[in-house]
């Protein structure tokens, strides 16, 4: 077996990021769905702010349909899942058919949820497939570096989302610390100045969410 090309490293990194984006936003979407049943019908507006996406939706129901399943909506969960799939499908030779199968099944389940009379039940399958996907990554991929790149992408995405959500500082710090070993394992060239700044903003007694987010966006800019 040869070495990882630059393009492949990029696909692996973004496969990690998009699959995590789907996983985390799906949980948020399901929680929001529950809130909008009877507590706060306009909760989706807050979700748009949290997710840092434009509120193009006309109502709760419009949000639930389009943000979940509309492939024309660039920010929708299905659009992000499609991007995960697009990055996975070109990586079959590295991640294996078995691993790739879980992303494929997540897409099928997402499509099934879009026409289901009980979409929240169907969406659990998407979550299950994504968790199985990461289990398969650990179990079946021998390449230390390949796993490292994907997991680095996953951890960067989670940190990015948690910073945008202004999540509890301890949770953000925990996520940040889990990202660090993955950065080393990935063997990707890291912008050390940005990494140092990220550490400063995150470990400060008063967390600087915006500063940390800006630094995070720069860590692969070398």
């Amino acid at each position, binding site marked *: *077996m*040869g*070495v*990882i*090309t*630059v*393009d*492949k*490293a990029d696909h692996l990194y973004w496969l990690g990021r998009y699959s995590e984006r789907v996983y985390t936003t799906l949980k948020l979407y399901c929680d929001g769905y529950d809130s909008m049943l009877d507590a706060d019908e306009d909760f989706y507006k807050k979700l748009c702010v949290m997710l840092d996406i434009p509120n193009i939706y006309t109502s709760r129901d419009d949000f639930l349909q389009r943000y979940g399943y509309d492939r024309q909506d660039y920010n929708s969960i299905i659009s992000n899942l499609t991007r995960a799939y*697009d990055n996975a*499908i*070109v990586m*079959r*030779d590295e991640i*294996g*058919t078995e691993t*790739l*199968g879980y992303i*494929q*099944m997540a897409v*099928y389940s997402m499509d099934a949820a879009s026409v289901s009379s009980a979409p929240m039940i169907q969406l659990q399958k998407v979550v299950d497939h994504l968790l199985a996907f990461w289990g398969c990554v650990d179990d079946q991929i021998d390449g230390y570096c390949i796993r490292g790149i994907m997991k680095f992408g996953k951890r960067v995405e989670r940190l990015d989302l948690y910073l945008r959500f202004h999540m509890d500082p301890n949770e953000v710090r925990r996520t940040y610390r889990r990202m660090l070993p993955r950065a080393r394992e990935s*063997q*990707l060239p890291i912008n050390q100045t940005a990494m140092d700044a990220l550490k400063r903003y995150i470990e400060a007694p008063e967390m600087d969410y915006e500063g940390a987010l800006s630094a995070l966006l720069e860590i692969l800019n070398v």
Partner: protein
Amino acid sequence: MHDICKEADAINEQLARYGVKFGIYKNGEFREQLFPFDAIPRIIDAEEFEYLEKGLKQRVTALNCFLQDIYTDKKIVKDGVIPPEFVYASSGYLPQCEGVRAPKGVASHISGIDLVQAKDGTWYILEDNLRVPSGASYPLIARGLCRRASPETFRERKIVDNRDYAQLLRRTMDHVNAGGDNVILTPGRYNAAFFEHSYLAELTGSVLVTGSDLFVEDDILYYNGMGGEKRRVGAVYRRISDEYLDPMNFLPESVIGVPHIFDVFKKGNVAIINAPGNGVADDKGIYYFVPKMVQYYLGEECITHNAPTYLPYYPEDMKYVLDKFDEIVIKDVAEAGGYGVVFGNKLTKAEKENLIALIKAEPRRFIAQDVIDFIDIDIMENGERVPRKADLRAFVLTGEDVTVWKSGLTRFSRNPDSFIVNSSQGGGFKDTWVLSR
């Protein structure tokens, strides 16, 4: 015996899970489609396969001799066996390959030979595919799933295991590798056969690359690792056609090829699988001459049968074509994938007149064949067995020796009135069982 057909839905579900698809462009839009699998296999018994194996080895050996000869000594033309216009007017003939000898005398490493079986049991060769024949991955992955879905079937029948294809392919690549990694060169995700490219890369341990990953430096082919390290490439199983392979030597507008890869090949510093220029040997016009090639190069009678074929280029064949127009099938040699195939009796009067005028104006462009009434094979449709036309693509791998893969891709038409089995035209596929006794 356990009925494997009962598990067809489960097998198709698994094929969907693993993304066993092919891509098509319709109305300018790319779509991925599942390749429908029918669980009733084509069964070839041991004796029949032995005959096919012998014939296919002989045929591919002769075709490899032809490819070596036609770009170097051209003895077969000089000796008047094949008229020169059939060689040099062929769109598959590449003048750039003149004087180039393929490494170890192998130009067609992976040959896909399409056959049909007539109702009297005779197997006929429909065409030789020596450029980038695809399709082996489908029965390969299906077999594993069938064995899982219906283990009793494989316990009770003596079916030769076909899951060695990746090893055979790897061995074929290693045989001609000029030193370095094996890579599979794909045009990319939006190619019709991308599933196959990526799946075979996974199974053979080859690196899947696109043209932009590869570069030439000092007559050596490399790809770059993410840390900037250069890795030498020794063999390229390319899944892009000749004209797009190298913009410096072939189509200059190609953006999916690798500049100067052909120069590296000419110097013997990389193997290209299959070699450039093979299109001249699988041209529909050259097909007519394959039995003569066998006789000429090997001094043997051709074991395989061509479908009875007529070249309007020869006056006596032109007469036959015009006399029997309503009973024959006419093929445009420039077309592929089931396109350009016309049944004389299906044309209107005006269409018939137009086509005859075209044949008279450009006789080299067409071949005509008697319609072979080939056997139907049952498929399951809405829970019932119904007969459909089917062909067989056999795969012949040439490395240190010539090996016929003990399986093959059986494609069938889902349309009861159609002889066209191509996946791009809505066909499905079956596994092909070769019995060990």
